[in-house]
Every structure is written in structure tokens, then in C-alpha cells.
């Protein structure tokens, strides 16, 4: 009997196993909606999600690298575009300030753009985009809304070379606005100048405004030049050593006004 059973098992076991698996599958289907089966599936899917994350790491990394390259290119283009707009915005602002100053100043002025600069650090030379055709002449003053910038050194029909205060060969007659102490301004270094020839008995204090004296055919009186930052008195010497800082930031100027006439135009009353 036992042998018969054994023979039956050997002959039919594959069907028995298959049947069992099918039966188990149906039992699983019946158990599908139970709490435990749902919990088991949730846990398994959580683990699968973590593993999935690990598997997708490398493809995502490659994708991110490609995206990053593309985005960097886009950022570069946008940055260039932004810089162009920003430049236009600043130019607009500067022009507006210059225009306002031009309207407020009583002298006849013409605006000029600085198209080049001297490459030498002690030569404060600038190249302007206007020349004799626009009414520029040698020794005309260059100003902006902050004050005196320099003067025209030479002129061609369409361009002009300007000399800034911060040039080693530049001199301008100036005075302390508060006490009217006169002297000669010359460049020292950076944006610093010295006011020479002010005698010891003159009253000069740090913070005093220095303006053009008017003893010149080039500059009208009262143009701001700078502010006194240091006053040194040495008893053995005749003059004070006055250091001033220019009002104009020469590293940043891009436009200037050329003072074409020192005469204040008379108002036309229509008569």
C-alpha cells in the first residue's frame, strides 16, 4: 500500500505541486483585501521605493549633468542679457543726471561720451566722441554734476582729448569756498590732490569745499573741485599742506559736459 502511494506521488507530484501553487494563488487573491495583505504590500512598496531610488540614482545623475550643462549655458546667456539691460539702465540714469545738471547749469554745455582712456596710470587722459564739428575747442572745461572733471587738451573734427584733474601735468586755480583762501590744485595720487600756495594764516579746515577761483579764462568761478580731507601746518614752511579729495570719481565717469561758453546766455524776452 505504502509502495503504491509512493509510486502515485512520484507519478503525480508535479500535478500536485502545480495544483497546490494554483490553490495558493487563489487563496492569495482571497486574502488580497485583508488588513495584513494591504500592510504587507505597503511595506514592500516602501522598500521597493527606496531600492528604486537607488537604481535611478545613476540615470538621474547623468540627466542632472546634462540639465546642468544646459542650464549653465542658459544662465550665461541670461547673465549677458541682464548685464546689457543693467548697463542700459545705468547709462540712462547717468544721462538723466547729466541732462538735469545741463538744464540747471547757466553755461552753454554739450554732452560728450568718453570713448577711451589713457592706459598709463599717471596720465589722466580721456578720448571724447565729439570734436570741433560739435563746437569743441582747446582748453574748454570738462564738468559733470559732481564738479570739475578737467579740460580739453586737443581737438580733431570729430574727436577730442581731455585732460583730467588726476593727470600729473594738470593745474587749476582754486579756493577754499568758506574762507576764500586761494591756491593751485595739482594731483597727488588716486583721487587725492593737494592745494598749494595757501599761506599759514589762512583759515582752512578739513571738510571745507574747494571750488575754482575764477582767475582763469578756462574755468568759471565756483565749480566744485573737491573737499579738504587733511590740513598740515609746518612752522618752518610758508604754506599749509592741504590735501583734498576730488568730488568726481574718475574711475567711473563715462560721460562729461564740455563747457562751450563761460558767458551766461541772456534770456530772450521776445522783444
Amino acid at each position: 500500500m505504502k509502495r503504491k502511494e509512493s509510486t502515485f506521488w512520484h507519478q503525480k507530484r508535479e500535478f500536485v505541486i502545480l495544483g497546490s501553487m494554483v490553490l495558493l494563488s487563489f487563496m492569495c487573491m482571497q486574502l488580497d483585501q485583508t488588513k495584513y495583505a494591504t500592510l504587507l504590500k505597503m511595506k514592500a512598496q516602501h522598500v521597493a521605493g527606496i531600492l528604486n531610488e537607488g537604481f535611478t540614482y545613476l540615470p538621474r545623475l547623468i540627466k542632472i549633468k546634462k540639465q546642468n550643462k544646459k542650464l549653465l549655458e542658459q544662465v550665461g546667456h541670461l547673465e549677458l542679457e541682464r548685464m546689457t539691460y543693467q548697463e542700459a539702465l545705468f547709462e540712462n540714469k547717468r544721462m538723466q543726471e547729466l541732462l538735469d545738471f545741463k538744464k540747471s547749469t547757466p553755461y552753454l554745455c554739450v554732452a560728450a561720451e568718453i570713448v577711451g582712456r589713457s592706459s598709463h596710470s599717471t596720465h589722466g587722459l580721456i578720448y571724447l566722441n565729439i570734436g570741433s564739428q560739435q563746437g569743441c575747442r582747446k582748453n574748454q572745461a570738462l564738468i559733470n554734476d559732481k564738479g570739475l572733471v578737467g579740460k580739453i587738451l586737443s581737438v580733431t573734427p570729430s574727436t577730442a582729448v581731455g585732460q583730467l584733474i588726476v593727470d600729473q601735468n594738470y593745474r587749476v586755480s582754486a579756493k577754499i569756498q568758506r574762507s576764500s583762501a586761494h591756491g593751485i590744485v595739482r594731483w597727488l595720487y588716486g583721487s587725492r590732490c593737494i592745494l598749494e600756495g595757501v599761506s599759514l594764516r589762512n583759515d582752512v579746515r578739513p571738510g571745507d569745499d574747494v571750488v575754482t577761483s575764477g582767475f582763469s579764462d578756462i574755468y568759471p568761478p565756483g565749480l566744485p573741485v573737491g573737499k579738504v580731507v587733511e590740513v598740515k601746518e609746518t612752522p618752518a614752511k610758508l604754506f599749509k599742506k592741504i590735501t583734498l579729495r576730488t568730488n568726481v570719481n574718475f574711475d567711473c565717469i563715462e560721460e562729461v559736459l564740455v563747457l562751450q561758453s563761460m558767458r551766461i546766455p541772456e534770456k530772450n524776452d521776445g522783444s
Partner: protein
Amino acid sequence: MVREILKFFIFVVIILIFQMTLSSHLKILGLFPDLLLIFLITVSLNQSRHLSPVIGFTGGLIQDVLIGGTLGVFALSKSIVCYVSCLFPTGKHERSRPLLFMIFFLMALLENMVINSFLAHESVSGYGTLFLRYGLPSSAYTAMTGIGIVLFLDWMKNHHFLR
């Protein structure tokens, strides 16, 4: 034996995760190859006939749990498929590559039929539509992928990349 079972479990999980991850890359006209089926058939063909339903059931049940469908559907379909695949001539030398392709194709078709018999009543498309639109093409895709993998493994063996 325990080591073999453990290795089998790990392989099944890796293949399923791999399939889930790469489904978007392997997708052609909305069809995916069933990589787990290929693996289970390959394992079953190298095992005895009475063990193959157990292999199919275990693999299918893991798939059910991980994918989150109705528990037991893949277990049932893969048990049947693995058993039926063993009815074909066994032995490495007897199985030519075209025969292996036929086995993959027919087994994928059989699995689709079993699964569709459960899904067809829930779907607005009828059984025939599901079979023609998805069953046949995806079975062909699975068979082609399967034979591709086998040929690749053969090439690796011939070039001594695999022992």
C-alpha cells in the same frame, strides 16, 4: 540550498526593481518586456518539472507584493507558465535558439492570457482587444528581449567574460 534560495530572492527583487526603473527606457509603443518572466523561464528550464511551479509562484508572489496589484494574480500566471515551459524538450543541447524564442513567446502569451482573464472584466476593452493590442505585441517584445539577453550571455561566455 538556502544560499540558492536567497540568491533567487535577491535576483527576483533586483530584476523587478530594474524593470520598474527602466520601464520608461524600455517602453516601445506603450509595451514593456517582462524581464522577470524571462528570468523565471530560464531558471525553470534548468530545474526539474515539479520544482518549476514553486519557482514561478514565488517569483510571481514577490511581483504581486512589490507592484501592488491584486495579490496572487502574477503568482498564478507565473506558476502555470513556469510549469508549462518545462514541458518543452529539456537539456541544454536540445534547446536551439529559435526554440527558446518560441518558448519565450508562447509563455509570455500564456501569461498574458491568464492575466487578461482576470483583468478583462474590469477593463472597458474586451478580452480580444486586450489580447490583440497588448498580449501579442508585448509577448513578441518579451521573446525578442529574452533571446537578446540569451545571445548576449552566450557571447559573454564565448569571450570568457563569464565562467
